[in-house]
């Protein structure tokens, strides 16, 4: 199998919880920096969702979320399931 093929198979295995911890750092770096790897991550998930009949969100959705996340900070005191800590309207 080529290096590219090995990376693709690792992406598929990682999706399904079949990759050991030692292999994940390099894989996640590839998914962060390599467009082809990121496209495979996207396509393999789209494939699974389509098999289950779920194809509702468009392909730019995660990019728009990522753009919004730049203005959001992780709040250690905020629990999204606890109404008493909810309230900040981000939209």
């Amino acid at each position, binding site marked *: 199998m080529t290096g590219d093929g090995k990376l693709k198979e690792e992406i598929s295995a990682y999706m399904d919880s079949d990759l050991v911890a030692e292999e994940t750092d390099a894989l*996640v770096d590839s998914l962060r920096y390599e467009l082809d790897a990121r496209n495979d991550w996207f396509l393999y998930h789209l494939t699974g969702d389509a098999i289950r009949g779920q194809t*509702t969100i468009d392909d730019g959705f995660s990019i728009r979320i990522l753009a919004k996340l730049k203005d959001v900070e992780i709040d250690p005191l905020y629990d999204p*399931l606890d109404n008493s800590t909810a309230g900040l309207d*981000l939209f």
Partner: protein
Amino acid sequence: MDVIDPDLDLVRRTKLGDCHAFDMLVVRHQRMLAHVISRYIKSPQQIEDVTQEAFINAYRGIMAFRGESKFSSWLHRIGVNAAMGFLATERTRIPLYEALSNTKTNEPLVPEVADEESPERLLITKQIGETVSSALKKLPGELRAAITLREIDGLNYEEIAKIMDCPIGTVRSRIFRAREIISAALRPKLELFRDRRW
């Protein structure tokens, strides 16, 4: 050696400040979450807005996720909360006469939202579904069985290996090959739709 749950791994990385790891979680769960929210809200634009809100709430409150439930279950509950919050806000916008008529019929005060699904968006969604379905049907039987047991039945590799009476490594390879073949069928369609939202 222990295998890694990708959700727990990506949550751990997000907690360490890696927002790209959260982006990978979004790609992984966006359609599931939108599907959950679409049970409560009809308009595609509003589904997307509420799905975005749910993901941002999840990101902001990621420290509250301690792995006591599956990440997808936690996200599911955040999505339902976001949908309920949206409907509550919409309800306050219903004119009084509509609220009164609803009270008379004892119907829940869920606003009627126009279905804004565009014909183009419907067509693209349909074509993606048809492409995947067609590619799935053309797969060799052992690949089709492996990917179906994984994606439809949610079995892990060990369970699939027992059912198919083969090594786990073979299951891993079959599922990967099935994904590659289906993805190859999808790629030209996605190129075609590149400049359009779907």
